[in-house]
């Protein structure tokens, strides 16, 4: 599903955020990417979502060589990827419902379908009763869950999460992680970037360890 092959991301100023990384994430897999801040976790996710481009090596997502994709094709590819951001990136002048509905509006769903799917997604993250509220009235954990609902509402085959538990207390963090595991159980390929090592260990899933842009570990849970 996601193949990095000697992929490097070098910025114009010469800084290399990702250095010759190779790994393969299979369809339906759940993978954590971990490492200290600045190790390149976020950049890795951004490469998959085409926010950044690899400067050398190959990156293949869903059978597509991202290095050769033209600007015009990017919207199509992004519709197959759900992304949740560390800083949520909700639109604060819109209701929770409208925030979650955005990917469906973009993809051109019918109004009835939008209502049904948004309700289902909000129900899944436990915020159905907040659909008419504005994001500012929600706590950080709730905003993160709205971001997750938005990322999964159009049922993308790939879900990327950047530090989803960043500022949350352990119990809330556990809940959020549980949500990702549930999405993975219905067949979604999930990649979560997180520096919460202790939490990741309890999850018992594959973990890729980054350090200064290099892949230094690829661990599978022992049974």
């Amino acid at each position, binding site marked *: 599903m996601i193949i990095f092959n000697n992929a490097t991301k070098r910025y114009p100023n010469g800084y290399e955020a990702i250095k010759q990384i190779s790994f393969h994430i299979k369809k339906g897999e759940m993978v954590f990417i971990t490492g200290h801040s600045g190790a390149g976790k976020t950049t890795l996710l951004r490469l998959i979502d085409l*926010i950044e481009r690899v400067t050398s090596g190959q990156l293949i997502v869903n059978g597509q*060589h991202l290095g050769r994709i*033209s*600007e015009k094709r990017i919207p199509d590819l992004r519709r*197959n990827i759900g*992304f949740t951001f560390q800083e949520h*990136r909700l639109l604060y002048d819109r209701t929770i419902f409208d925030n979650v509905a955005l990917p469906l509006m*973009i*993809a051109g*769903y019918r109004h009835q379908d939008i209502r049904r799917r948004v309700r289902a997604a909000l129900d899944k993250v436990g915020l159905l009763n907040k659909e008419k509220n504005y994001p500012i009235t929600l706590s950080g954990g709730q905003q993160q869950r709205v971001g997750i609902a938005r990322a999964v509402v159009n049922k993308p085959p790939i879900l990327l999460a950047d530090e989803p538990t960043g500022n949350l207390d352990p119990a809330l963090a556990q809940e959020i992680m549980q949500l990702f595991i549930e999405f993975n159980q219905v067949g979604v390929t999930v990649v979560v970037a997180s520096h919460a090592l202790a939490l990741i260990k309890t999850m018992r899933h594959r973990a890729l360890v980054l350090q200064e842009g290099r892949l230094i570990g690829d661990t599978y849970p022992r049974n």
Partner: protein
Amino acid sequence: MKRTAPSSRPTPPTPRSKPQVTRGRNIWLSHHVYVFFLSLGQFFSTPLANFMTSAVIAIALALPGGFYLLLENAQQITQTWAESSHISLFLNPQMAIQQAEILGQQLGQRQDIQSVRLVTSAEALEEYRKYSGFGEALNALEGNPLPNVLIIQPALAHLTPSLLQELDKLEEVDVAQFDMRWLQRLLTIIAVVQRGILILAGLLAITVLLVVGNTIRLAIFNRREEIEVTKLFGGTNAFIRRPFLYIGFWYGLVGGLIAWLLVNISFWLLRVPIQKLSTLYATEFEIITLDIQAGLILVVTGIALGLAGAWLAVGKHLRVIQPH
């Protein structure tokens, strides 16, 4: 903007998900309807600021529109005067009446001459006798001192000095006299003013483009986060462009309607003094106001300028905004 260099190797055929294609035009249309109302709501969410932008467009449209209308009215008045203007050709006194008639027929066939009337020396003398009050004195004259005269009514479009000069050069003509030279000057001035209004309209159109473009540019940067997030979830440029184009549309529409109103109010205010003027000149004169067709042209021009301004701004700034 980043662009990948075109690859020399052909990209493998890839399965594309095409939800839009199968769902068809209905969805596309319903999004347009949605954005239509959404942008209308946005327009009225900050009514004062948006009405001010529209008012700029309105004034920029109303100025050339109003001037043009004034000019139309002026042309209508001068037309009635022009119809009563003519060139008098005093023919050589030696010329026989038959020759004068032939010349009159020849001139009458010219395109730049509407009609020709011959006043023979005898008719002229009779008229003079009747109206001058010198009847008895004229009887004392030997023979008729008056020449034959051709009264020429030029076609309106050819009320030019060149026609007069041309006629003056004819061998048979003693003197050619244009008795309403001032009118011809007025018509020339109107032509100059007409050109001036065209230039003014062009400059104001550019102003509208700049004002709308700048307003939309600010709107784009105010909604930068929304644009970035939309791009992150696969929004195409067309999708993102749409609401901004509709805002331009609303600016233009409202601006055009206000312009229509402004012109009508102005002419309503001018109506009384203009009618007074026309009675002074003893001319039957119906003031020309904006009819439905001209009003619609005003509104459509406003919409076109609003859309064009929005298009310019969006095209320039949307590409710069890439998600970070």
